[in-house]
């Protein structure tokens, strides 16, 4: 297990790729976007990027919003 910062909260997660993490959270990878240490991780490479201790991850999606 390693410690990462996921959407602003410190969390213990299993070693593996970002795709593994997204799947373990029960999220549909097609509906989210991921930023790692302020860099976009293209969806096509999520399975190739291994999580590192201390990574800051943002996982976002579209929500209702106006002007």
């Amino acid at each position: 297990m390693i410690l990462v910062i996921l959407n602003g909260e410190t969390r213990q997660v299993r070693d593996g790729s970002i795709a593994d993490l997204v799947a373990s959270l029960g999220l549909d990878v097609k509906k989210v976007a991921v930023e790692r240490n302020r860099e976009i991780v293209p969806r096509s490479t999520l399975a190739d990027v291994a999580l590192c201790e201390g990574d800051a991850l943002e996982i976002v999606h579209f929500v209702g919003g106006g002007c």
Partner: protein
Amino acid sequence: MTDTWSVAGRTFTSRLIVGTGKYKDFEQNAAAVAASGAEIVTVAVRRVNVSDPTAPMLTDYIDPKKITYLPNTAGCFNADDAIRTLRLAREAGGWDLVKLEVLGEAKTLYPNMRETLEATEVLAKEGFLPMVYCVDDPIAAKQLEDAGAVAVMPLGAPIGSGLGIQNRVTIRLIVEGASVPVLVDAGVGTASDAAVAMELGCDGVLMNTAIAEAKDPIRMARAMKLAVEAGRDAYLSGRMGLRKYADPSSPLAGLI
């Protein structure tokens, strides 16, 4: 004869863009979008709720394949945050038509034009097609256009205020000076406000609160659709001139 408008090479029939915030629930939101006839909706980009991934999502109710999602940077107060948000939006949605707004302060939600201009330049260089929320200033609108804005979106009044278009003259000056579409963004409160924007020659209107906070949002959505169409027709038909005094509509000849 269909009256259409185009932004960055994409053509739309509806000139009404609606937001997807502040609704009671997703069902009401989807029904209001349908009643408005809008082909574009604005959406926000936010962190997923990692503790409840099964929570319903907007995309389950408003199909991004049928309705164009326009990711918006509402809530961003500097260029960096706005750019970062739109990079994520592009990755999440896969399209580059976006709405940029960089706010200056919470009280008025007026745009910070310095940051807005800077963000527009960066986004355009990165291949984005930014439609840009701005002050109702014809010079600022021109500067945004030069920086790569594919549409300028001056406020009619502060976001969420429902005050209607406060300065028709400046909105009209922007329309006359622009070579990209002009859409009034923010400030519309009721149908006549939307009609005014269209009568000034704007290419479209964006609104959220006016529909979402109406007592019957679905009916108001329909009213806005009709108002935008009526205003557009009135603009295209070329209104009569103004006179200071009366001019009878019935012939004076043949009076008994």
